[in-house]
């Protein structure tokens, strides 16, 4: 199993590699949602050189919901990626598959529509399309992840650590609210210090608006310390997403997971890590089956 991370800067890549990161996921915010940092094409090129020198892999995140007006620029960006030579391209919109196929780079694609890869057949369907891999949906249990992996026909990745988003609207919901209240709204756009709290729930969900709309996240970040060794046996890529955190956090978590993977017996250590992180982390849906049709 490879460990993938979302670096906050080109300069942090070497350190993250040293801690044990195998794959670096970069993106530009014109073409990607919910990035920790928007890399310019020049920075991506610099990162590519460093990552290649280190013998590591570069994935590009291209997970916007594509509208017609985006198509020309998306194709230009895919051409740039093709020229650069990357190891993976993460997408969530089928239009990107169509363009990538024309450019003959569909074998680099990793399909991550956030919520739609929920059963083993998804890997069979996409294998026939010739893509590299799939990221399993966020609301899937450990048991289901295992079953999908047993029957997989493509590379399988999961977001195993970090804040999971749970909502993406095209609507500018923050801006509209402040326009309704006739207050200045500009300072609240791209502001990642905002939270919403529902009137009868004591949970604070991170929310922000950017040029692609409004995004809402779970209150607690996911951690999989006690599951990492089980996941190692079935998942190909374990993604650590650093959104709302920083480089030090990424370095620490990569180091923790690597330590657990290298130990002969890691249960006690894994429990210690879970305990250390429990204030603002939980196990997400790994053990929580959502209700189907009965309530």
């Amino acid at each position, binding site marked *: 199993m490879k460990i993938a991370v979302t670096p906050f800067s080109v300069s942090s890549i070497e350190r993250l590699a040293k801690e044990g990161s195998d794959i670096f996921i970069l993106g530009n915010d014109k073409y990607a949602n919910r990035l920790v940092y928007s890399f310019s094409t020049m920075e991506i090129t610099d990162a590519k050189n460093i990552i290649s020198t280190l013998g590591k892999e570069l994935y590009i995140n291209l997970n916007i919901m594509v*509208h*017609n007006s985006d198509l020309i620029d998306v194709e230009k960006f895919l051409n740039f990626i093709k020229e650069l030579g990357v190891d993976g391209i993460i997408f969530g919109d089928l239009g990107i598959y169509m363009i990538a196929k024309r450019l003959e780079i569909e074998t680099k694609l990793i399909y991550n529509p956030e919520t739609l890869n929920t059963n083993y057949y998804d890997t069979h369907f996409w294998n026939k399309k010739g893509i590299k891999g799939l990221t399993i949906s966020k609301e899937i249990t450990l048991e289901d992840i295992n079953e999908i992996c047993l029957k997989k026909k493509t590379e399988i990745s999961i977001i195993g650590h970090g804040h999971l988003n749970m*909502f993406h609207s095209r609507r500018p*919901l923050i801006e509209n609210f402040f326009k309704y209240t006739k207050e200045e709204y500009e300072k609240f756009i791209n502001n990642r210090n905002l939270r919403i*709290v529902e009137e009868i729930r004591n949970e604070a969900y991170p929310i922000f608006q950017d040029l692609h709309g409004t995004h809402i996240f779970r209150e607690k970040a996911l951690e999989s310390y006690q599951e990492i060794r089980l996941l190692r046996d079935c998942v190909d890529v374990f993604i650590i997403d650093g959104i709302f955190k920083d480089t030090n956090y990424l370095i620490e978590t990569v180091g923790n997971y690597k330590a657990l993977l290298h130990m002969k017996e890691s249960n006690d250590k894994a429990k210690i890590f879970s305990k250390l992180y429990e204030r603002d982390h939980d196990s997400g849906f790994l053990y929580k089956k959502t*209700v*189907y*049709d009965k309530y």
Partner: protein
Amino acid sequence: MKKPELLAPAGSLEKLKIAFMYGADAVFIGGRKFSLRARASNFDISQIKEACDFAHNLNKKVYVTTNIIPHNDNIEGLVDYLQELEQAGVDAIICASPIIIDAAKENTNLEIHISTQMSNTNYESVNFWVEEGITRVVLARELNKQELLELRSNTKCHMEVFIHGGMCVSYSGRCTLSNNMTDRDANRGGCAHSCRWNYDLFEGESKLNDNDLHFAMSSKDLQTVKHISDLIDIGVDSLKIEGRMKSIHYIATVVSTYRRLIDNICDDYEVNLPKYLLEIKKAENRLTSHGFMEGMTTIDEQLYNMRNENPTQEFIGLVHDYDEETNIATIEQRNYFLPEEEVEVLSPNFRPLHFKVEDIKDTDGNALDAARHPKQLLKIFIPFKVSKYDMLRKVK
């Protein structure tokens, strides 16, 4: 000018019949399996067959939603179910998952429509489905008319567009608010509509909204009377009304309004938009807007600071039959009404006829001072002929 299909929701056989009688060309219904809207009164196979037989006798169509995003343990019985749908005479299924799409392609000849749950927002993604042999895509509700026009120019796929009803605030199919907040899976029929709840907004520890004004994301319902002419000009193939859980009065009012509007536009009659806007308002229990039709949503498309469900009390009775000799109608009560109230008749013939209620009697002939009991059969005098499935509503 090509006349688009008018596609209506039907949560029951009664609603299906009402939708067809009031002018729908096709309806979409949910089966007992693999369908979203768990609380809608979904159809079993014998009811689906009855629905298809009824529709086909009228030269109309029935589509069945099989649009859950299934997990591994939801797949059992899929092929048998799809084959049962085919045998029942279903005209198409509406899908959102490759396993259901491929199972249908490999084991049946069912026509497949791609659900809006897949949020197809551009012509490249629509053409992905064309390459898969799909003939129709239900487009994302986030598209404006310019985007629809570009789509029309760049795909041969049949385009189905929502014109009326509730709207997801999120891109459809990409939301797990309900999963996270209530454990109910939005993509498997359990959406709790958490996006319609009230929130407080904080920056750090500072609350940004006043105590009497919550941060709300809720959307007004979609209503596109003013845009139907443009959608027809663009060449949209199917105009879809949302709401399998809505009442028969809602379905009758909305379907008949759009039916006449579409016919008037396509038959080149003068279109009296205020009349249609007034008529469709009688079905509304939530505020409405044009959604994304004119571009990015503004505050006019959002709902702020209100509990927005206001059930309409206008619908007072459904006609069961009419005795032309005595002018006495048998009606099923749907809302409280009194003698002397002014009432209008909503019928598939769209006659704007009014009358004043005189005596109200029960079926044993006992005079009543008011119609109080839902579903009670009542006898009232109506001075002109009405027919089964006509609806009575108060004139405000």
